[in-house]
């Protein structure tokens, strides 16, 4: 049944229960997982037995003639900052190494209600802070296309799992690019919805005004299926919008004739790897060939986006992570002598250096005397970044940019200089600041490593993004390439 692995769900679904059972599909993925994990290390927790049980239950329902929900039998992986009831949720951190939540994240619950089968929890940069998954408190994940290279981050485990055939689809989270950038580096599709499209309830918070949950998939069609299942208003998340969810799958077939595609000049400047630029521009030409109208636009605030993002994200994170204190759950330091050292030693021992750095940066930015100059200033620049995007969307319907300035980098290459690592997200960050939807689709290779094309849309217009991306995939086959590891 290995031939089932690496095929998109929408191709498998018509054959489900006829050519193969759910159990066989899930087993094929579990076997691939077992074979490749020693190399890729995408997972922190594998829930094989539960997966098999769920698969059996679905097969029984099939046999009883029940019509099954839209994602029945889809083997999925969940980033380990998504709460799963009864299943360890570590956020890639020692401070939550044994934490078992008593509840499910809404997005997880919806995915399961749609019939998806969870294979396990994937590795991430600790508390989603990073761009390479090297900040995981446990071990790094490797890029299935080149095991000496990073899979990107912070949702590196989820991206690598899908790329390696260790899951058919996955959920990740994106605060500054943490779905799109690893999707780009691993050659899979990754989408960050508009802020408010998907409930954040149960997503362990990093930066509350920026975080979103989104899907990884082999192609745009599968991506639309997963997005459909998890989207929608949640009364438990005050920041989830009460807007109807369009039929994302029906929206795929529109074609791109007449769609106006904008290329922001600033995204094609210095620091962009030449082969990446080439692959992205080739992709845009394909869109043009399909009838899209391409024009140049300006986003002059791009150069301010990175510091704006980090000040806001770190400030919110410094507050969101204050709860990890050894009191009511999680790790507690054995060296706690009194209340103060309970806190200070638990957190010193439980958190890694990047998390500490960001907490301190954020605390500093909010502290007395600095609030106006740092946090408030950043929130004002954020308004200007949004206005820039608003202006663009008067001229065009989507923006096309590279997802990542480079096709990939080796493990250890950027760990010495935090700023260097931050620059990996320079093209994705502004999209989070503006709360817009963004998708990355594979569009080529550079030095053997995948390159991603990022499309950015208007608020709540995931449908147009999916439509353009789908049209691109109908005309190209980058998304059908599978990493040698999976083939071998």
């Amino acid at each position: 049944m290995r031939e089932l692995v690496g095929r998109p769900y929408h191709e498998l679904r018509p054959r489900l229960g006829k050519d193969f059972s759910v159990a066989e599909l899930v087993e094929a993925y579990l076997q691939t997982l077992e074979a490749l994990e020693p190399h890729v290390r995408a997972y922190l927790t594998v829930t094989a037995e539960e997966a098999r049980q769920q698969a059996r239950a679905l097969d029984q329902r099939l046999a009883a003639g029940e019509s099954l929900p839209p994602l029945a039998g889809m083997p999925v992986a969940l980033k380990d900052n998504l709460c799963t009831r009864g299943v360890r949720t570590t956020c890639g951190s020692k401070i939550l190494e044994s934490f078992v939540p008593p509840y499910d994240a809404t997005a997880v619950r919806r995915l399961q209600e749609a019939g998806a089968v969870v294979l396990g929890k994937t590795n991430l940069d600790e508390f989603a802070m990073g761009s390479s998954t090297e900040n995981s408190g446990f071990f790094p994940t490797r890029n299935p296309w080149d095991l000496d290279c990073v899979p990107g981050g912070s949702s590196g485990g989820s991206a690598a799992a899908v790329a390696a055939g260790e899951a058919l689809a996955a959920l990740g989270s994106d605060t500054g690019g943490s779905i799109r950038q690893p999707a780009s580096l691993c050659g899979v599709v990754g989408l960050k919805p508009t802020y408010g499209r998907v409930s954040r309830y149960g997503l362990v918070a990093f930066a509350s005004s920026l975080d979103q949950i989104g899907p990884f998939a082999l192609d745009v069609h599968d991506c639309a299926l997963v997005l459909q299942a998890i989207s929608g208003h949640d009364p438990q998340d005050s920041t989830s919008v009460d807007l109807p969810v369009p039929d994302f799958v029906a929206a795929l077939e529109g074609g791109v004739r007449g769609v106006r595609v904008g290329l922001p000049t600033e995204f094609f400047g210095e620091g962009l790897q030449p082969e990446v630029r080439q692959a992205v521009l080739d992709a845009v030409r394909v869109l043009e060939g399909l009838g899209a109208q391409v024009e140049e636009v300006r986003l002059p605030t791009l150069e301010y986006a990175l510091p704006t993002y980090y000040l806001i994200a770190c400030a919110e994170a410094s507050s969101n992570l204050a709860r990890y204190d050894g009191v009511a759950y999680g790790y507690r330091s054995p060296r706690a002598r009194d209340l103060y050292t309970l806190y200070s030693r638990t957190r010193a021992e439980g958190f890694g250096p990047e998390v500490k750095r960001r907490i301190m940066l954020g605390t500093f930015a909010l502290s007395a005397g600095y609030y106006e100059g740092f946090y408030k200033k950043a929130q004002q620049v954020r308004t200007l970044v949004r206005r820039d995007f608003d202006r663009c969307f008067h001229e065009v319907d989507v923006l096309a940019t590279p997802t990542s300035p480079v096709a990939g980098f080796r493990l250890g290459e950027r760990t010495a200089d935090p700023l260097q690592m931050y620059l990996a997200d320079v093209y994705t960050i502004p999209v989070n600041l503006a709360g817009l939807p963004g998708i990355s689709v594979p569009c080529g290779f550079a030095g053997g490593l995948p390159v991603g094309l990022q499309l950015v849309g208007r608020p709540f217009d995931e449908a147009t993004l999916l439509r353009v991306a789908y049209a691109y995939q109908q005309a190209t086959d980058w998304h059908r390439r599978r990493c040698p590891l999976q083939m071998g």
Partner: protein
Amino acid sequence: MRITPEVVERVARLSRLELTAEEQATFAAQLSSILEYFARLDRLPTEGVEPTSHALRITNVFRPDHVTPSLPVEDVVGMAPQAQEGFVVVPRVLEAEE
């Protein structure tokens, strides 16, 4: 801007992070260079610009005043590193003392 080890110490205290002297020095240097890079924000004029304190422009999201089931106490106490008789246990919290 220059972040001295003393500033790091104060911020670490506010964040409840125990740092070694070496960490203090390293973080001081790293935070300094990061904040120096961030200083480019000062180049952008922002007088009169509204800060984006909320990502969405919605208001009045409420829940009704209905009681919903709480977690079983075993679940709550089961998560705690130390618990006793239904309470979560921490080192003695010093009251106001003479």
